[in-house]
C-alpha cells in the first residue's frame, strides 16, 4: 500500500487498485458460474445473481438453497447470517470516509463493499473519497460478472486439474492482504492467529458441527477482533495512519 496523502482522492487510483482484486475475482466467479449451472441454475440467472449480489459465500449458499427448493425466509436468513460481516466492514469503513461522502454516495457505493474491496480501502492511509471508491469497485464488479458468465457458459470444457488450481486464487489474495501487516503489528498477528484457531476449532470439533460457515466467520471475527483490541490497543500515531 502506498502512503500518499492525495492518492485516495482519485478515480484512477481506485481503478488501478481494483485490478488485482478483479483478476482474483475472475477465477472465483468462474468457479461460481460452473457450480451454479451444475446445480441447475440457468446461465443467465447465474450472471444476474453475480450482478446483483457481488459476494462469493452468500451466492454459493443462495444457489444451494434455490436448487433444493428452499423457502424465501431460509434464503433471506442465510444471506443475513453469511453476509453480516459486511455490516461490520461498512461500520468500519464509515469511519474512514471524507467530507465529500454524501448520503447518496453512501447509498450507491455501499453496494460494492466486499471482503477484498473493504480490505484494500481500509488499508489506504488517510480518508477515502467517493471517486476512489467508485474506481476501486469498477473492475472487480465487471470481472465478477464476466467470470460468472464465462464459467456458466464455458465451464464444462475446462480440465479438472485447472479447476482445482483456480480454487485457491481467492485465498491466495486473502493471505497477501493479511501477512504484510501481521509482520509489522503484533496486534494484527495475534488477531489473525486467534481467528484461524477459532475457525479450526469450530470446523473440526464435532460439538460445533451444526454451526454454518457464515455463523462461524461472525463468531471468529467478533472474538478475535475483541481480543486484538483488548490486548493490543493501538497508539495514537497508528490511528492517524489507518482510521
Amino acid at each position, binding site marked *: 500500500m502506498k502512503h500518499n496523502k492525495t492518492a485516495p482522492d482519485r478515480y484512477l487510483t481506485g481503478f488501478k487498485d481494483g485490478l*488485482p482484486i478483479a*483478476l*482474483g475475482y475472475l*477465477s472465483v466467479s468462474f468457479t461460481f458460474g460452473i457450480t451454479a449451472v451444475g446445480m441447475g441454475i*440457468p446461465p443467465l440467472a447465474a450472471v*444476474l*445473481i453475480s450482478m*446483483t*449480489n457481488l459476494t462469493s459465500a452468500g451466492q454459493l449458499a443462495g444457489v444451494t*438453497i*434455490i436448487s433444493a427448493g428452499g423457502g424465501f425466509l431460509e434464503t433471506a436468513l442465510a*444471506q*443475513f447470517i453469511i*453476509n*453480516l*460481516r*459486511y455490516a461490520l*466492514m*461498512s*461500520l*468500519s469503513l464509515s*469511519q474512514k*470516509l471524507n467530507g465529500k461522502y454524501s448520503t447518496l454516495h453512501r447509498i450507491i457505493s455501499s*453496494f460494492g*463493499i466486499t*471482503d477484498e474491496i*473493504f480490505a484494500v480501502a*481500509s488499508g489506504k492511509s488517510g480518508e477515502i473519497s467517493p471517486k476512489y471508491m467508485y474506481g476501486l469497485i469498477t473492475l472487480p464488479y465487471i470481472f465478477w460478472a464476466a467470470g460468472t458468465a464465462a464459467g456458466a457458459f464455458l465451464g464444462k470444457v475446462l480440465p479438472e*486439474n485447472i479447476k*482445482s*488450481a483456480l480454487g*485457491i*486464487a*481467492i*485465498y*491466495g*489474495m486473502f*493471505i*497477501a*492482504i*493479511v501477512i*504484510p501487516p*501481521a509482520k509489522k503489528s503484533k496486534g494484527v498477528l495475534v*488477531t*489473525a*492467529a486467534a*481467528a*484461524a484457531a477459532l*475457525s479450526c476449532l469450530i*470446523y473440526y470439533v464435532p460439538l460445533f458441527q451444526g454451526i454454518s*460457515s457464515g455463523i*462461524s466467520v461472525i463468531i*471468529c*471475527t467478533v472474538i*478475535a*477482533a475483541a481480543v486484538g*483490541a483488548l490486548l*493490543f490497543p493501538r497508539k495514537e500515531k497508528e*490511528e492517524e495512519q*489507518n482510521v
Partner: protein
Amino acid sequence: MSDAAYLYLSIAVMAVVTYLIRMIPLTVFRKKIKSKFILDFLYYVPYAVLSAMTIPAVFYSGNSVIGAAAGVVVAVILAFFERGLLTVAVFACGGVFLTEFLMQFF
C-alpha cells in the same frame, strides 16, 4: 408459482438482504466513533474475517489437501516478501497445479 418466478424472486431476496446489510451501517453512521475500544476492534475486523475465512477452508479448495497446502506455502512466502495480491494469487494457483501434476507420478 412458476419455477421462473420462484428463481427470480429468490434472487431478488438474496440481493435485497445483502444490499441492506452493506448500505445501512455505511449510511446511518455519520459521526466519527469516539470509543477507543470500538475503533481498535473495527481496525482488527478485516484481518479476523479474512483469516477465519481462509483457515481451514483453503486446504479444501482443490482436489487434494496436499496440493492446496503447497499453494498455501507458496502464497505465505510471497506474501511475507510483500508481493502484490495478484502475484500471490497466481503463483498459489501455479503451486497447486504443479504439485497435483507431480502427485500423479507417486
